[in-house]
């Protein structure tokens, strides 16, 4: 349902953008008749509903249509870009989730001590910096001055796994910085709540060693809310990276959509956005599933 609404919004959004498809492709000096003919071939002169229906019915059958600009099927572009985006997201994810959670947990265990202040304030400050700012600073430090990492994420052809990984470290760092604060904050507040809870008191008064109390009784309950946050951020990691991808000249789905929007390449634009919508939906679904697995109150309901 959400995806259906999204597809309509994307479609209508594309329509209200100024500009004419044929004109955009053929350039300002082309003959008006040629533009009209092209528009007709592309089908953009049909009524809106017909255009939408033609596109969406193909999409659900797996046919994303033909790019106006490249004159070839959209699907390979989108799939390629999605693959690239997922690689970048995966690297950022693997970096930020464990470190973010660890940071939050450590902060909560040292509540109001210097370590907590450093993690909380540090996390917050890097979160509020937009990724293009941190991106540029990081490029300057690691790429230009120290020359440890390549400043572009476009790896050479046929690069192996580790080479790709090497190229992805720098672009994933700004993402790490943006998300670290969120995740650490959620983990911290979840921990504080769990540490103050009656069941933690019960566990401590049972005489369980502190380590057991934390691992068995506190963590699981404390990190439940964090999972939801991580899932919504996964969508962002895959689809919301236009800036980072442009900055690092990376062929992800964000930059694909950006290019498509500029060229009024509707099939490409709409397919790209809808794909991101699907990724969001799947991530949320996975989070709900995980949440219910970890939370017996949701999983089993109440017998009473």
């Amino acid at each position, binding site marked *: 349902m959400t995806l259906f609404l999204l597809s309509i919004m994307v479609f209508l959004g594309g329509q209200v953008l100024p500009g004419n498809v044929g004109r955009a492709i053929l350039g300002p000096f082309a003959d008006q008749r040629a533009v009209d003919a092209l528009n007709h071939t592309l089908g953009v002169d049909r009524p809106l509903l017909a255009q939408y229906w033609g596109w969406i019915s193909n999409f659900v059958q797996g046919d994303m249509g033909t790019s106006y600009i490249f004159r070839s099927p959209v699907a390979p572009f989108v799939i390629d870009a999605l693959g690239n985006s997922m690689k970048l997201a995966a690297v950022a994810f693997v970096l930020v989730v464990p470190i973010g959670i660890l940071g939050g947990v450590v902060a909560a265990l040292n509540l109001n001590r210097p370590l907590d202040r450093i993690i909380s304030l540090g996390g917050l400050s890097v979160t509020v910096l937009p990724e293009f700012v941190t991106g540029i600073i990081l490029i300057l430090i690691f790429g230009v001055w120290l020359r440890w990492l390549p400043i572009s994420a476009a790896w050479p052809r046929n690069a192996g796994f580790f080479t790709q990984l090497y190229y992805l470290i720098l672009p994933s760092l700004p993402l790490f910085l943006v998300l670290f604060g969120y995740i650490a904050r959620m983990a911290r507040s979840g921990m504080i709540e769990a540490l103050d809870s009656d069941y933690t008191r019960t566990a401590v008064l049972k*005489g369980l060693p502190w380590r057991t109390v934390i691992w068995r*009784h506190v963590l699981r309950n404390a990190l439940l809310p964090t999972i939801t946050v991580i899932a919504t951020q996964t969508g962002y990691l895959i689809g919301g990276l236009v800036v980072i991808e442009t900055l690092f000249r990376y062929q992800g789905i964000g930059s694909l959509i950006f290019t498509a929007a500029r060229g009024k390449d509707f099939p490409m634009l709409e397919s790209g956005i809808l794909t991101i919508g699907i990724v969001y939906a799947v991530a949320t679904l996975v989070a709900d599933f995980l949440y219910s697995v970890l939370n017996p109150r949701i999983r089993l309901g109440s017998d009473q």
Partner: protein
Amino acid sequence: MTKSAKAENALELRDLSVAYRVAGRNRAVLRNLSLNIGQGEAYGLVGESGCGKSTVALTVVRYLPRNGSITGGAISLDGQDVMKLDAEALRRARAESVSMVYQDPGKALNPSIRVGRQLTEIFELGGITGKAVEDRAVAMLNRVRISDPTSVMQRYPHQLSGGMQQRVAIAMALANDPSMLILDEPTTGLDATVEAEVLDLIAQLRQELSASILFISHNLAVVSNMCDRVGVLYAGMLVEEGPTEVVFNDPRHPYTVALLRCLPRGGQRKDQGRLDTIPGFLPGIGVDIKGCAFADRCALADDRCRSELPPLYDLGGRLSRCFYHEKAQALPRATPSDVAPAPKAAAVPVLRVAGLNKTYSSHGHALRAVKDVSLDLRPGETLGLVGESGSGKTTFARLLLGLVPPDDGGTIVLEGKALAPRLENRSDDQIKAMQIVFQNPDSALNRSHSIRHLIGRALKRLAGLSGKALEARLNDLVRSVRLTDRHLAVKPRQLSGGLKQRVAIARAFAGDPRIVVCDEPTSALDVSVQAAILNLLADLQSKEDVSYIFISHDLAVVRYLSDKIAVLYLGRIMELGPSEDVFSGPHHPYTEALLSAVPKLDQTETARIRLDGEIPSATNPPSGCVFHTRCPRKIGAICEQQEPPLSEAQPGHSIRCHIPYEELARLQKEVVTEPA
């Protein structure tokens, strides 16, 4: 730790002082508290909320909140100085010698771990491994009278009822045979019948186990039934201590005297005199107390009391911290006992309910929350609704108020006019004629408005007043609920629970209601505040000729205020009649069981009727008489097959039972149940 040489006392507190750090300042919560609990003894600690009871418990197990610290004194647990223990020794002490059970078992158990695992980890800690762990856990659950331990162990806490959860918590506390068991309000918030079961269990376990008990409760009756000795705590100080019976029957401190007077006792009713109250408030934490802490609220206090701290006088086996302990019982009443004349009960009912039903559908099953309820209420009369959780009390109230529509067919007639089933279809007059006071004034009052705004708005909306008239009525109303002008400017959070409840009552009375539904209005309040609210409700009733529908699990309170009682079970009226008849009997076997479950202050150990198991699910009520599955007086197959009618046993007193009235009278004479 060596358990071989047992110390003389299981617990000794010596001059214990504890402070909480608030706004950069240490504020004293416990002041030089000394007490001993002997081996195998049960010691009760009573007092109003905020006097430091729970702090005592948390200090003993060294689990004070982050801002709390022990500022002086010593704690000795089984001869071991708790304050000198390092982290590991403290952990061992918690594992081996002291356990704690507290209020709200639903929160005390870890929601995401199975009950069995939460129990077995204790045995594993004790070095037991393999199959033996499982066996020990099963044995422990059996011990707390859980009939199906293996299946309970597979469940998560939320799948158990409150009573079961508390049994599990007790099982966990007793798993390693502690020498000291601390019970902090273990039955508060449980139903009366469940409370009775849990208390029975604790009493039985005391005989089986060697543990000494520190029993903390605001409920004097519960403590009087459970404990050998009792200590009365006031502002973090022990003001009186002694054997339970002696202290409660012959109190020697004005505070104890006053506390006991706040309770409606021995079947006291509103027309027989008002309850006494305690004026003023508990001193805030951390204030400097020069003389006696209670002096400001004590009518016996003189200059000496205000300037000099009274010592704990030893009165032969008992202690009292009062210069005038001899004449403590001569404490003058804070509230005169004379009552306004009862309003003449008019013959025409203000409310008639006939054939009211409410069926919810849940997962395809019909849940009959209220079944075939018919009753009348006259002006100036109070109808008490009694029954366990899930008996339909609150649903009935919601039906009356139009918050949920009843099933087709039933009628609610207010002052001769039929009420529409839904609130939005009722006229303004009908809406303001019926108001409600909730249990928790915090969630009923908008916290961002001042009291003046809250009451003023109600007057505007319900009474249609504005300008000068509103102002005049506002002042009137505020005075009638005994608030003063200075309360008007503040926000709800700046008021105590009792004052907030007064605001809620003023709001309900703004539109001159004919009927006010009081849903557990005093359950969250201390006894002294409860007494003041009950007096207020009684006064308002005689002044305004308003009718109440009063819901409470505290039967003594219901009895005090009610003229008429309806006992509900699974949505059905089991008994309906004048308050005195219902309480003094002969009554329905369910009423009988409810009454006998109530802990009483002046208990002469009567045989208690126990209800087995829990209230059945309303989606699948038992056949025949719905109570037959738990009825101690079941007479045979007829109870299982045929639902008895609600038949009039005596004029105005109806009972839904197959046993004839005379037979009930004979049966119940054998067991003299002292009424609440």
